[in-house]
């Protein structure tokens, strides 16, 4: 979750827009002023004053209400496509007297796919806070930026809409939608491929590493009771984790032609790669990815953890529509040493375009090649992606 800097009212932009009712009211005001001047009826002067006061009051009260409200946007930084994203707003009324009523929140110049987000607060008592939010689903992967929040109200009399733009920059990276792998593409799990020698590291809880004396803070469950009884001092088991396997995904992002079908197939490959990487991360693989963008070749060496998962999926999310860089260029950037123990998965639109794989096969532990035709029996795509256009809900 990202929390933007608290806005300062002095820096925000205020503006007003006259509503249709307000325009009619102003016309009526002018007519009453003319009637009052012509007839010199005192009560008409009074009514003219009342209407003028109403206009001034609308300007002052609405501005005061908006200026007294703090706005904060809470939104996830990352989300998968076709999954619900929660966008929260926190409003806090700073003043001691007078409520803020009828507050509308909307994003300023939102991306095309995020038009419908916003919130509404009916009444915010003095000193009170209000949490509201909307939820939406983004169909298309990519990076979406929200620059500012517009707080507006028509209160008190709906003569004009007072608006205040609160600058808060947030971005949302929408990762490719996840599908489902029908068969286990990864040949074996991390435990299955660990070799017979004990691990060199002492972390984890998968494999016995040795015994040592009990130290304060050790979990009593790991006390080796038999050895303890023999030695007369508490002794605990020390466990280790087998060395994780490495998955390297190589993605050919260059479109073979400019047809929509090619683009659709390419998107499907990206979704497959994302699903595979997510699956591998879930099984504690060290994952890496190499792909070509329009301006550079992205090579992320294999690593484990949440950070690496985020970086890998970010790279997939931000793939351009097309690139001039061929798959061979991606292969040229690969660090060969890291491939030695890696399971490499090459994904591309056409098997013939994946050049240089023969050399790679010798350099890595295992190489798998997947094209869209191979995915039919292997990968169930997200149903929303099969159905329709890229939209947001």
């Amino acid at each position, binding site marked *: 979750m990202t929390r933007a800097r608290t806005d300062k009212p002095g820096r925000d932009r205020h503006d007003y827009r006259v509503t249709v009712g307000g325009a009619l009211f102003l016309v009526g005001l002018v007519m009453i002023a003319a*009637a009052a001047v012509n007839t010199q009826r005192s*009560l008409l002067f*009074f009514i*003219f004053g009342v209407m003028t006061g109403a206009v001034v009051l609308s300007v002052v009260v609405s501005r005061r209400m908006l200026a007294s409200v703090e706005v904060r946007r809470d939104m996830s930084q990352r989300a998968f496509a076709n999954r619900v994203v929660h966008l929260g707003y926190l409003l806090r009324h700073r003043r001691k007297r007078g*409520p803020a009523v009828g507050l509308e929140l909307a994003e300023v110049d939102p991306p095309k796919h995020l038009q419908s987000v916003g919130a509404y*607060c009916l*009444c915010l008592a003095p000193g009170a806070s209000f949490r509201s939010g909307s939820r939406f689903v983004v169909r298309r992967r990519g990076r979406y930026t929200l620059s500012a929040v517009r707080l507006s109200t028509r209160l008190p009399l709906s003569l004009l809409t007072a608006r205040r733009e609160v600058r808060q920059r947030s971005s949302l990276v929408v990762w490719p939608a996840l599908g489902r792998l029908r068969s286990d593409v990864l040949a074996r799990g991390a435990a299955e491929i660990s070799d017979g020698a004990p691990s060199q590291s002492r972390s984890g809880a998968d494999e016995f590493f040795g015994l040592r004396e009990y130290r304060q803070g050790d979990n009593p469950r790991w006390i080796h009771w038999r050895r303890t009884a023999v030695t007369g001092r508490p002794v605990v088991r020390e466990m280790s984790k087998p060395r994780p396997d490495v998955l390297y995904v190589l993605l050919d992002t260059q479109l073979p032609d400019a047809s929509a079908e090619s683009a659709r197939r390419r998107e499907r490959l990206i979704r497959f790669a994302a699903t595979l990487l997510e699956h591998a991360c879930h099984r504690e693989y060290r994952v890496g990815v190499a792909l070509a963008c329009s301006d550079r070749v992205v090579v992320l060496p294999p690593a484990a953890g949440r950070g690496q998962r985020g970086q890998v999926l970010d790279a997939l999310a931000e793939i351009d529509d097309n690139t001039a860089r061929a798959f061979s260029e991606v292969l040229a950037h690969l660090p060969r040493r890291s491939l030695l123990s890696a399971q490499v998965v090459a994904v591309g639109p056409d098997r013939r375009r994946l050049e240089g794989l023969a050399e790679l096969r010798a350099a890595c532990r295992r190489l798998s090649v997947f094209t869209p035709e191979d995915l039919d029996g292997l990968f169930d795509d997200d149903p929303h992606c099969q159905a329709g256009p890229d939209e947001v809900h």
Partner: protein
Amino acid sequence: MPLRRFTEAELVLTQRLHLERPLLVLVLLGAAGSALAAGSVIYLLLTVAGVGINAAALHRRSEVYVPRAIVNAAVLIATAIFIVEFVSRDELLPALGHYLILMQLCKLFEQKRNRDYAQLIALSLVLMVAGAITASGLWFGLLLLAYLPVACYVGMVLTLKVSLDRQASAHLAVESRPIDPHRVAWNVSTAFPRGALWRMAGMAAASCALAATAVFLVMPRLAPRFAPRLPVGRGRGLSVTGFASSIRLREVGRIRPDRRVVMRVGMTSAAGKGSLPASCRYLRGPVYDTYSDGSWFLWRAPLPRAAARRAKPPGAGNLLVQRVTMAPELLPTLFAVAPVHRVELPGNVELTSLHPGLTVRDRMYYRPIHYAAHSWFAPLTKTQVDWLGGAPGHRTPRAVRTGEAIPPSVAALARHWCADLLAQRGRVPPGGSRAGEMDLRIAERIADRLRKDYTYTLDVPAADPDRDPVEDLLFRTRAGHCELFASAMTLMCRALGLDARVATGYLLDGAADGGEYLVRQSDAHAWCEVYTPATDWRIFDPTPAGGRRRTAGALSRLRRLWDSMSFFWGTRVISYGESDRQRLLGGALAWCRSAWRACASFCAEAWEGLRDLIVHRRVGRDLHKAMLALAAVAAAAAAVMAWRALSRRRFGQPRRPDRPTPPAFYLRLLKLLRRRGVRPRPEQTAREFLLEAGARLGLPSGALTDLAAVLYRLRWGHAACSPAELDRADRIVRDLAGQLRRRRRAP
């Protein structure tokens, strides 16, 4: 009449109820303002019925409406009524007001959406504007003040409803299935901010009223272009009071007393308040001299030219000054106790006649007029009578009255009533003072007979067209009102050779309120004036008693208060003009200047005092004053800061829950340990602190654990301990204190 089923969203958004209740009140207020201003009670009743039906339906959580075709037909009928009314009466504003009321009724019975609510509010506003053009009474001002907060509240609620509906529809469009009510309506259905909105509406109304007052006071006034076309004019008042160029006795039917206050008169006399004679109660206006065919005609006398004006009028102890504020409906006549010898008028009014009645020409006749009239009350001195006798038009030219036809029966009756006095008068030489006295006795006799033998009524029976109205009064109906009696007496006096005339004006009734009289339209009166060379014109009132009912008590006082406020409203608010504005702004400017001067002189004095202190080491009075002022300012600032601090404490920070007070034994133990230098740390619990203290001071841990258990049970378990347990805890603390004391004494 079908009832509309609510959609799910509307059912959730219960603010429709919050909107429609005050909206109906607003509709009623707007229609009442317009209908009462135009005097159309039927339209008001129609609106009340329509609002009542809607309110009843609302109470049943339903909406009443008729099909659109019927509404359209009703609109067409309303338009036809408007056209017919406008063509037949040739008055646009009342017809327009009626049309708008009918349109509002049509809207009330239409299927209402947000646009219809907005139209209802707009119609109501237009109706109030129409009422403001037509009406000028205080009641309308109060109605307007009541209208303002309701209108603000309705406007706010409608704004909220429109926003909420838009939000709901936006979410309904996005969501694939019906949303949960609590998510659509947010916190509307359970926590509609009615109180907050009412407070905001009240403040908004007060702000608008303040702004309106400022605009009203400051906005420059010009001459009206269409004022003569407005329905409120002076003709209405004149037709009621009869202060026209003639009195037509045949046309007078039933007179309805009008309690409108038209004048406020303050009287000051050189002789003091308590010594004013009865004649000072008669404020004379137009005087009628020529009688013909049952009608009296106005006596017009020009103002003497400047060259012909004589020297200063003689003063005496019977001087009476009347300061009058008069409604503009009574112009061009001014009313004062006769005879008037001097009038002080505002600059925009020009006097055109001084005798017998005051007549003015006012360039802005729709404004109230403030004037002061200087009169002499009876008895007049000889120099005063002589001064008056030389005024042009003061006496009736006998030539005008030569062609009068006094009915013979009236003359005969006068001779019959005064036969003895006439015989005495025949023995007195004409033209002398005795003859004048006899004339007055004759007039008094006639007035007495009229007062005793006849009755007063405002419901005069239909006059016989073939007879003279006075003859009809004296011999057939024997009942009438003041004009008839004044006419009868005047004709009878003239039949006996007396100089008499009919005077009209106001008879001041009731006690003066702080030296001021409130004069109502119903106080209009007519009487007879008889001239003798020694007394000038003497007032005789032949109207029988019984025509005036006096009311007393709280209701009467309330009525007087209301009348007084109405008159103030009419003369100070409705008739606020350019001269008033200039006076007000001039006064404000002068006040600002004087305040600035006072401030500057104060600063100069303070500086002088300070210089005296620095240079001469002398503390003067100026310095004392400056120090006092500074102290006052500092005290005010301190009060403001204290108030702000208190309010911040009250509103700004959420109140913390009260912490439970530790039990007495624990407080004693804490005190004891504090003396030994052991204090609890913030992160320590009570048990940890006690155990640590025990370890440091070598106290038995069992006793301390027991104390901690009792403390925890009291504080966190909210379980009361028995007195025995508390005694035991006290005893433990005392033992611990003893141990510590002994250990300290030990070497």
